[in-house]
């Protein structure tokens, strides 16, 4: 280990020791309890809980609705980032600021608001003439809101740093704006775009607070996987809850590793 010369030995020891102790107490011990608790189940029991039909439906809903919302966000997030970096217009600061609103707003409040807005009695429900709340579409909508900042905030700094000469060179070589965008700008933004996509997808998979208010939580239809953990807990089935949590945890961990690889890839570029 290399350490800076300007800290005394005592301080260095404190920095290392304190970080380790804090993480062990707050993260490592609590997280490892999931492994130990679910290992109380034998393999057959584990599979019958973590991969029964109802759980599989819940994973499928979480997976697909997160994927859809990440797609929506990557298209409109790209446009939003582009507009905010490249154009000047009245109210730009306002729109730039409200991008962060979904991060600052509690998820339960978001769920309550969307659930009501798209219900039969809500403004959107009345406008559309039918109810979106309590269907998978409502889950996609609320997940789009919750994960809206990620794509925009991933692309924005990269686009700001981008050398305009790249695009000018392409234009001077005879590329039209559309060609320039697809052959020069987009490849340049791609790693950041993908990072934003994965971040928003990962956020959707684990999201609980907002979804349970809009989905109606109907088994085999609008029930998301984090809710299965909560239901097991309410029945004091701690091992069962841990089994499903382990599946979710493994999935999040894989996404994190993927993000890490992406980050290194961008650095090399």
């Amino acid at each position, binding site marked *: *280990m290399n350490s*800076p*010369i*300007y*800290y005394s030995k005592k*301080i260095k020891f404190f*920095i*290392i020791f*304190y*970080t380790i102790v804090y993480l062990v107490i707050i*993260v490592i011990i*609590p*997280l490892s*309890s*999931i492994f130990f*608790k679910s290992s109380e189940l034998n393999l057959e029991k584990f599979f019958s809980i973590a991969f029964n039909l109802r759980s599989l439906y819940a994973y499928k809903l979480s997976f697909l609705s997160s994927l859809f919302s990440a797609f929506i966000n990557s298209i*409109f997030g790209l*446009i*939003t980032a582009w*507009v*905010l970096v490249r*154009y000047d217009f009245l109210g730009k*600061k306002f*729109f730039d*600021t*409200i*991008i962060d*609103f979904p*991060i*600052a707003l*509690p*998820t*339960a*409040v978001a769920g*309550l*608001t969307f659930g*009501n*807005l798209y219900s039969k009695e*809500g*403004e959107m429900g009345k406008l559309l003439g039918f109810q979106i709340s309590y269907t998978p579409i409502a889950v996609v909508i609320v997940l789009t*809101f919750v994960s809206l900042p990620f794509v925009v905030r991933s692309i924005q700094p990269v686009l700001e740093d981008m050398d305009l000469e790249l695009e000018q060179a392409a234009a001077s070589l005879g590329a039209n*704006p559309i060609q320039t965008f697809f052959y020069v700008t987009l490849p340049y933004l791609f790693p950041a775009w993908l990072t934003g996509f994965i971040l928003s997808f990962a956020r959707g*998979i*684990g999201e*609980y*607070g907002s979804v349970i*208010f809009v989905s109606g939580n109907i088994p085999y239809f609008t029930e998301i996987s*984090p809710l299965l*953990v*909560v239901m097991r*807990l309410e029945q*004091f089935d*701690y091992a069962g809850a841990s089994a499903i*949590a382990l599946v*979710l*945890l493994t999935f*999040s961990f894989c996404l*994190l590793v993927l*993000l*890490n690889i992406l980050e290194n890839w961008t650095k090399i570029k």
Partner: protein
Amino acid sequence: MKSSKLVKFFLIGIMILFLGIFVVLPMISLLVNAFKEGLKVYFNAIVHPETLHALQLNLIVAVFSIPLNLFFGVVCAILISRFEFRAKNILLTLIDLPFSVSAVISGLIFILVFGLDGWLGKWIEEKGFQVIFATPGIVLATIFVTFPFIVREVLPVLEASGDEEEQAAFTLGANSLQIFYYITLPKIKWGLLYGVILSTARVMGEYGAVSLVSGHISGLTDTLPLRIDKLYNEYQVTSAFAVSTILVGFAFVTLMLKLFIEQLKRKSHS
């Protein structure tokens, strides 16, 4: 040139439509619903003893969790940015975990450790303490959910600024604490401040993790989001929206402070 102007208006239009549908419209709907039954119902919901207690509990949780995470955030960011070691990637992954892990898991893990059936459950009960379904459990789950915020805000600042000034101070005879106080702290103060603001918003609004460990005891372990949840389930929708406006207020202040800090930062740079 005319077509590029058309493209510009078209794209701005799409963005406004997108943010309008997904952010502005829901917020208007929330406010309209909160005041739908008049100011009296609104204020009754806000000054209800259980709402005030929930707010008080939120503040207690913030008072415990934010200083702990603040201190850890600074120490951990210094470790990652200034020391070279092999396990750095593992450390970074651990720090990012609470961002990507479901809030439900953040609550579950503390039940598994401190719950009656958990590793420390028996021992804690014998000592006469209660962690789960009480304030300490809520504080722990909140710490887990929010500890990455400050690290993540401070770390990029430290990495970007390098440590030449720290080294210079050292050769001039400053000790470790002086170096931290006079050199490092001024560098990271804006990042630190923004991290604290962001975690405060999160501490106030955390629902998933807290709902698992709190036990939902009215007037005792209900935080504001849990109080909103309860009102909604009791079909007091207007009151639920009214209480929500407190949290919307916090979110709004968070965004304003962020803008303000960015402005200050720009000023101090130029």
